[in-house]
């Protein structure tokens, strides 16, 4: 029996409720999709937060112009994250090398990902017992089937009016799908809530 910590990487409690097994499985790829401005990047960063705080080493590859303050607000421990922005064609080299030493990679690959490069990286992640979180605009961003897909379908900001208030809270509608279209599940998530937390939106009856 392998202990759970050896098989998984921890995520924030609200996100644990979205993921099968309540954690990111090591050796797997999770695809997070959504248009710019949808909250997909925030969600991807949030998936790293708990692991970074728990002492796991992370990398953000191809996440250009990272808003570091927002990442801290999302719970990321900056001391355990290296950034390789504007990586373009070198993303596979960067990710491949980093898998030798980090346990969790947030990757925004360029527009067209060669099948072979993706396969090689996924195999490396499996071998190194690391988790890949891939960010993309749509599910076609990654050419391989993945263990888990989280699609940000819609997002709604609250707090700003016509010259009043400020953008203070956001809800996103998510569709979480397992490998091969299994276990499809829809949820609604505060990203963040008015109190600044990441939490599931309570079911309305």
């Amino acid at each position: 029996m392998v202990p759970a910590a050896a098989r998984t990487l921890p995520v924030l409690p609200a996100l644990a409720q979205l993921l099968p097994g309540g954690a990111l499985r090591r050796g797997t790829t999770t695809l997070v999709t959504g248009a710019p401005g949808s909250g997909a990047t925030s969600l991807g960063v949030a998936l790293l937060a708990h692991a970074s705080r728990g002492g796991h080493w992370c990398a953000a590859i191809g996440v250009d112009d990272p808003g570091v303050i927002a990442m801290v607000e999302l719970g990321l421990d900056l001391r355990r994250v290296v950034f390789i922005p504007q990586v373009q064609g070198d993303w596979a080299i960067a990710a491949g090398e980093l898998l030798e030493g980090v346990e969790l990679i947030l990757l925004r690959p360029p527009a067209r990902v060669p099948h072979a490069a993706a396969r090689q990286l996924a195999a490396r992640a499996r071998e190194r017992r690391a988790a890949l979180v891939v960010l993309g605009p749509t599910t076609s961003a990654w050419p391989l089937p993945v263990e888990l897909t989280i699609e940000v379908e819609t997002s709604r900001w609250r707090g700003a009016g016509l010259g009043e208030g400020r953008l203070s809270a956001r809800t996103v509608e998510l569709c979480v799908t397992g490998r091969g279209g299994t276990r499809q599940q829809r949820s609604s998530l505060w990203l963040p809530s008015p109190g600044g937390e990441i939490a599931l939106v309570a079911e309305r009856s």
Partner: protein
Amino acid sequence: MLWLPGLAQEGPRGAEARAFAETLGIVHQRCPFVTPIRLGVAALPARAPSRFYGGEGAVATLLASELEDLAQQSGTEVRIGVAEGLFASVMAARAERIVEPGATRAFLAALPISVLRRPELAALCQRLGLHTLGRFAALDERRVLERFGSDGAHCHRVARGELGELIGIRDPRISQRLAGLEEPPPSAAQPSFFGGSSLAAERAARAAIRVQQRLGSERVQVARLRSGHDPADRAELVPFGSEEPAALGAAAPWPGGLPAPSPVTVFTTQRSVRLTDAAGAPVGVSARGLLTGVPGRCTVEGDPRTMSIVAWAGPWPLTLRWWDRRRAKARLQVLTELGTGMLLSAERSGWQLVGRYD
């Protein structure tokens, strides 16, 4: 290259590190550019001092005689060698050779495969009957990548003399360790980036360094926080390894800054934004810090779409400081019909996109 085999292994009392630091001090007087590579190994640029002292052989003899006493005290021999590239230089020092420019590959070819310090690769090569770097170097590049992977391919390029530096030959913390000998030991509570003594930390740092070696050291970055008004001012990315651990502050409140949530994308390049009212008339910020119209539409440079604005907040005026390069007057949040939140800044030249709430 200077090689002190007796100091290459660290003993329990740190005497080797101290002796090595002392050696470097002596060498430094003759060659100010001496750089420690790892315990017992230091690099010096050969050309300048050898021109001054009359040839590389003369420098080697001079250094050897100066280091003689110290070497005897600490029970090590002193070996000096010259070659092109860090790996070949270490090998040259080991063999006490001066390898002429252009002769590097031939010199490396005769060395045993074990000098690469890759036990698995060496074992596989032995099985294939490849006992020397020369035989390994003669293999086809693509086959090497297939059979030995990317690290094997890297070793292959080193063996061919195409790459000067073998990954793993440098101890990334040697300078820090030697510096630590002169100062009180750093407190364990000090936050250190990728630091600490854990194996995982060491592996992560090594992986980051490998990416730096392959893509350039500027490309691998870590974040540093500081106080400031703006998301763009409050954090910066600096190359990995250039960072002083203590400068990495924890998340602290930023006086005068916009409250959370902050934009998760903060643009480092300027992107102008055209902000108009519903009729298409430009909207700006008045001298008193108020909007000159009702925001209705916006277009971001580089994006052909014009988006309707469904909500906005601000403007929040900023205190203008004479040293402020951005010359920002105010901040404004806008929310488009697509649900995209953006943070704009009113500057002399017009609106700029500061960040996006991705």
